[in-house]
């Protein structure tokens, strides 16, 4: 049983995905076309899956689907009119007001019948695969274009966790589309002289992993750039509270060469991203007192995260950061689930890299004769 049998029988063959497909599945899309069709976020998940990394099931609402929606609903003209009115050097307030206006248009413009049909079909397929009714999903913006992986865009587009039922999924998709026009994104493109048409947005709809713990992991130290270690930050529940900086997470460092835990600093974790059944979404609430100071990860879990990070870095050949989830039903020995990855932009300044050997001359030069205070003083 594959999605191809149901949704796109003629798209299963390698290299045959049509550019006009509204939906591509992570496990079916040709990795070489994955980013173009599904945006960088979803494209990388497809690449990871093909390379054997555990990722959640899901599909991307493609950039073509977005473009067709804007074109056929008349949104394009209305958006262009708003942007034209802004001119080349608007005030911050004008940008914010334009952003609010455009995002309101996205929320009020219904998805056409054809696309609604395709998305409903795909969502039902995901429910079938997950053996669940109205399976909760994560709906994530997945931008395209050269600037999409720019650090300026980190966290700028919307993500909705725990969305359940096709109506809510459609709303979340439209909100993600609208987040291409946040004030920050608008201002960025105006400053750089980039048209929004040059960076259309895709949206990922992926099965929500019921998280016991989540976090981020870096295949190099995110601050010093030291490449001899893996750094993991983690808390209970879903990763949103960590990504948004709402919780002070546990901090773990692991030696890359031998996988030894070098340090594990347990933080006092005040906030947790948890599934709110009443709202039907993951939201941030106060951490239960008994969990706040408890160490999140055991040695085996740290090892599984480090192992995944190492293989992702090897696959890409450059340093990466990842978002990962440990599901409620994961057992020791199972891989952890990777929900996002991207290249790390930080690189080690030469003087901060771990020296290869003990060189007393170089060290004396660095710490004694450089005119800078010795660290730790």
């Amino acid at each position, binding site marked *: 049983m594959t999605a191809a049998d149901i949704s796109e029988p003629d798209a299963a063959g390698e290299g045959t995905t049509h550019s006009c497909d509204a939906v591509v599945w992570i496990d079916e899309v040709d990795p070489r076309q994955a980013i173009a069709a599904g945006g960088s976020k979803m494209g990388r998940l497809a690449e990871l899956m093909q390379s054997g990394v555990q990722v959640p099931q899901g599909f991307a609402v493609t950039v073509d689907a977005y473009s067709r929606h804007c074109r056929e609903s008349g949104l394009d003209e209305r958006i262009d009119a708003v942007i034209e009115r802004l001119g080349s050097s608007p005030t911050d307030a004008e940008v914010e007001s334009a952003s609010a206006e455009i995002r309101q248009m996205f929320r009020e413009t219904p998805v056409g019948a054809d696309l609604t049909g395709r998305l409903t079909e795909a969502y039902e397929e995901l429910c079938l695969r997950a053996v669940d009714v109205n399976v909760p999903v994560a709906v994530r913006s997945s931008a395209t274009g050269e600037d999409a992986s720019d650090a300026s865009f980190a966290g700028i587009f919307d993500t909705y966790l725990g969305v359940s039922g096709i109506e809510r999924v459609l709303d979340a998709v439209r909100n993600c589309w609208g987040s291409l026009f946040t004030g920050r994104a608008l201002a960025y493109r105006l400053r750089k002289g980039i048209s929004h048409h040059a960076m259309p947005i895709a949206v990922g709809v992926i099965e929500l992993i019921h998280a016991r713990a989540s976090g981020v992991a870096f295949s190099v130290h995110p601050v010093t750039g030291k490449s001899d270690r893996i750094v993991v930050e983690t808390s209970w529940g879903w990763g949103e509270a960590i990504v948004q900086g709402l919780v002070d997470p546990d901090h773990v460092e692991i030696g890359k*060469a031998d996988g030894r835990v070098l340090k594990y600093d347990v933080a006092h974790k005040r906030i947790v991203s948890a599934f709110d059944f009443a709202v039907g979404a993951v939201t941030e609430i106060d951490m239960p007192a008994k969990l706040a100071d408890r160490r999140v990860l055991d040695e085996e879990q740290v090892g599984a995260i480090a192992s995944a990070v190492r293989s992702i870095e090897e696959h890409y050949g450059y340093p990466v950061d990842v978002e990962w989830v440990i599901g409620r039903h994961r057992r020791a020995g199972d891989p952890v689930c990777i929900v996002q990855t991207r290249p790390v932009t930080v690189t080690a300044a030469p003087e901060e890299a771990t*020296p290869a050997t003990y060189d007393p001359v170089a060290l004396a030069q660095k*710490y*004694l*004769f450089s005119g800078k205070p010795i*660290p730790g*003083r």
Partner: protein
Amino acid sequence: MANVVPVDDFATGEWYPGYKPEHFDMPWIVDPASPFKPGDEQGFWFLDFHWSRGLTPLAATLWSGDGYCWGTQHAAESLPLPPGRGVSARFAGTHLYGSALPETDPHEVGARANRIATNLPHFLQNYRSIWEGGRDELENTWQYFRGVDFAGTPDLTDLLVKGRRYHKRAMEIHFGVMYPMLANFLGFYGACADMGINPNEIGKFLQGEDTKIMETDREVYRLAMRARAAGLSDVFDTHEPHELRAALGREPGAGPWLTEFDDFLQVYGWRAEATCDVGVPSWIEDNTIPLGLIKTFLKKDDEHDFEAAARNAMAEREEAIENARTGLTREEQAVFDAGLQSNQEANFPWWQDDHNYYIDLKVMLPLRWGCQELARRENADHKDDMLYLFWPELMDVVSGRKPYQGELKSLVGERRQYFDHWHARRSEMPKVLGTIPEAVEDPILIEIFGLNPGSIKAVQNPDAATQTVMKGVPAAKGTARGIARVLQSSDEMHRLEPGSILVCESTSPSWTPVFGKIAGAACDGGGMLSHAAIVGREYGVPTVTALGVATISIADGDEIEVDGTTGTVTILNKAATTSAATTTPAPTADAPAGVAG
């Protein structure tokens, strides 16, 4: 923005009575020593804690010339230190101020960096033969002087010249070894700190190696226990240190113990109470210090277990190393292991204590013996009178070119008064003079003298006398509360009781034994690698260094708390002013034992 403390008060052109600039005619490389002179406010000068008594004319000129301006400048050129050219010296009255000489020319700094790139590895590969070769050379010269019959030598000129050469050569060896060892250690230190190792742990990696100074302490303690066994505790209890030798001589049954004591002195007693100061006696010349140490050891009822302390130091070392390695990546462990091995072989903290036995505490003694023999021949009033001459005057007297009696003798009288005048002013001396930077770069000034940004700021605090909480370098962990004893020099060590908190400018090896009885220590100067820091860690005595103004802020008798973990010293209760006044001896009324005169 640099603060400038004027030197005008001290740059008057006046110095010791009869002083002439040519009295400082000694070799130097970059900058010669002198009294302060106009223009010196452009440099940064710090009051050197090594000589808190002040220096006699001969001690002042020989140390500042042959020690600092030859020894350090020579070593800084030959290693070389790329941005540093050694230390120079100035005098305000009898008190020595030091200053690091910077190299600022970028081309020169680069050329010097190339030279150290060759010379430092060479030194480290040959450390043992270089240090032991230098040490043995000095020991041979020392044995030569021990074999000389000073009284039976008709012309003392040659012996005095040789005595000075011995000291000067010792300083070449001293700084020639110290600079590269310190560079290696601080490079390792920086690498450890950068790898996330707690800097307070780094000193532990190299502790637990026995030194000649620690060996001496154990022997002093053993003698104390022997005195107790011989029933001499009461004699020690009822006499002041300077009365003890005579009292023991009168005591029936003390004979065998005194024989043991004298045998001990023949091995360990050739040490003066100050670093390279020809003006102070050795333990053999003046028994007051070792007998005073034995007296205080006897006041403690519980026995100090040196072996247990040594075992603890080693166990703590191994634990610290293991803990540090656990947190390092494999790549970092390779760097750490190699750096640790290099520093265990050329162990700077160990050397920093051990070398004092061979160099600092005894290399001035032959010159002192020659001066005392000359004083005897010249019928001087006091055996130390020649130490109040300058070197050219001393040469005139010893060679018979000029009589001592008459003009020189009266000058010596005036110079003694000058010495006493400035000795009494020590506690008022500014801690720093000239252009005060926010930070200094010289590793010796930072790690040995404790001139870090915090202490440099502290010494400029106009409210130093009234502050009750001060921060310094957390040198040895733990917390202690007790009554402060504010000492000007090791001459006052007998005022320390078991449980006292030592407050002083800084310590040197002559202070080591008191760490067996004090509860804590707070020092104006001294960094992580200063004597007080190293010995405080070995003895487990909470110690804070580099406070800048502890001797100003804390009064004798104050109840204070020393937190050697955080580097905080707090005055809990001020002593009543009357009791402080009675416990602090007036310097002129009771001439401290170590002061010449």
